[in-house]
């Protein structure tokens, strides 16, 4: 090793050390703690802290509220992300064909994406208002109690989530579309390909990687969804919008069962990491390693 290289290496460590120290203190330490807490009966307000082993995890396996929350999380994720990918793709195609006003169009889209999720919750709460909501006004007929109805609450929350995050998918698809050489389409046209054939043979394959990335980012976000349901419905009515994050939060900070709440959070985190790992394997196979 040359002296310069050795010096560079030392500088590198020095420059990286503060960032790593902060990450270890603020990320690694809490993650290690939550694993440890999940093995304890721990209720700090009552001074209870004793080892419980895997008792919480064993309980979760039979806890109907937990399986409900897991099911709600799964349903929310698949429906939201599916709609976001489909709609985002359509919007990206429309934007590509756009000649004038692209910037304005992007501003209108990104506005929805950039607003705080609590603002989104307030916007939709007002749209869904039983008496004065725009949604019921546009639907005419008799007013629906969107967020208070066990059947409608989850679709209502999903709609708000799709509104908020579809623009992200549209943007990354649009960015990829603008890099496709027009010659590809011209050549296909010369060969007599129709619009649909060109979409299926050229556009879709070239977009597949971006769609996969959209799927990864959006599913990870949807699996840990918390803000929208916590503010819009509080997880109700009757637990029909209670995701794993909301259920964990209730136990951690409302019923103050730090140990049990931690176990819920650990399982939720494990599910997210499992999905991330699976997608990363697919991305790597597609030659798109991160």
């Amino acid at each position, binding site marked *: 090793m040359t002296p310069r290289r050795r010096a560079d290496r030392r500088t*590198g460590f020095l420059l990286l050390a503060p*960032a790593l120290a902060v990450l270890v203190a603020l990320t690694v330490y809490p*993650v290690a703690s939550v694993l440890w807490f999940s093995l304890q009966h721990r209720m700090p307000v009552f001074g209870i802290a004793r080892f419980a082993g895997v008792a919480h995890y064993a309980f979760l396996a039979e806890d109907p509220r937990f399986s409900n929350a897991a099911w709600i999380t799964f349903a929310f994720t698949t429906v939201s992300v599916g709609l976001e990918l489909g709609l985002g793709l359509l919007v990206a195609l429309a934007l590509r064909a756009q000649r004038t006003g692209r910037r304005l169009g992007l501003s209108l*889209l990104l506005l929805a994406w950039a607003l705080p999720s609590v603002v989104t919750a307030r916007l939709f709460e007002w749209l869904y208002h039983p008496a004065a909501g725009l949604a019921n006004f546009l639907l005419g007929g008799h007013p629906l109690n969107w967020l208070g109805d066990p059947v409608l609450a989850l679709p209502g929350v999903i709609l708000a989530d799709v*509104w908020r995050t579809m623009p992200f998918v549209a*943007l990354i698809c649009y960015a990829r579309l603008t890099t496709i050489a027009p010659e590809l389409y011209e050549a296909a046209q010369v060969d007599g390909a129709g619009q649909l054939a060109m979409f299926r043979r050229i556009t879709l394959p070239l977009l597949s990687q*971006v769609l996969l990335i959209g799927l990864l980012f959006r599913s990870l976000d949807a699996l840990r969804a918390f803000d929208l349901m916590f503010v819009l419905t509080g997880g109700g009515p009757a637990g029909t919008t209670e995701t794993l994050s909301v259920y964990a939060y209730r136990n951690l900070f409302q019923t103050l069962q730090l140990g049990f709440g*931690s176990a819920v959070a650990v399982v*939720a985190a494990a599910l997210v990491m499992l999905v991330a790992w699976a997608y990363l394997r697919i991305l790597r196979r597609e030659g798109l390693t991160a």
Partner: protein
Amino acid sequence: MKRLLRDAGVLGLLAVYAIPFFWQLLTSFKPEGELLVLPPLLPSYPTLAHYQAVLEQSLIPRALANSLGVAALTTLLALVLGLFGAYALARLPIPGKAPLLLGVIASTAFPPIATVGPFYLLLRTLGLRDTWGALILAHTSFALPLILWLLTGFLREVPEELEEAAFLDGASRFQVLRSIVLPLAAPGVASAALLTFLLSWNEFLFAYTFTATEASRTVPVALALFPGVFEVPWGDIAAASILASLPPIVIVVGLQRYLVRGLLAGALRE
């Protein structure tokens, strides 16, 4: 002509898409008596009464100041830490670089609900509950991995030859970083800063859990807890929502180029 009509049509549809926001904007100007009746859709006369009420009688102005302070300081802290770290990852020979970057990106996928409990106890032990410091630390824990990831990419794009030339002229690492790398990477740094600012401005779970009073409540928390004793003050909530949306609007409309650059680099880096 047909082209223009089609373009106008797409813009029209996107404007319809933004209706939830514009409806709230309209609501914020509606007189109290016309809030709970539909039709008419438009107010008979627009009023600033809701803004006046929010600015003079609610905690929103204080929350806006808290959000501004927390988001600005988070961005600053994460940028300083991230810049040095990212330069090391982009340029210097560090063993285990690949797994380190993988760990950094994996930590952004980790759900906040899993760390919020221990984080709360940590902040309580440090005596930071209900302070800006608590939120700055919490938000930095999300922002730093994102910044490291983005900046490592942006700094790699700076041509290494320029640095080598400066070294031959006798410049130190630090001088090179300050007067060559940073100016060239400035647009990327701006993108990362904007995303961090938005992340902190919008964050809810940690801000809700670690704050207790107006001393530290940020805008999303104040908006979620907006008081309504006997009836919900829809007009005031609308005005408060619009105020909470101002920085994101400025970023989307005025700084779109940088925002999109950062967003795409975060998502599409290969």
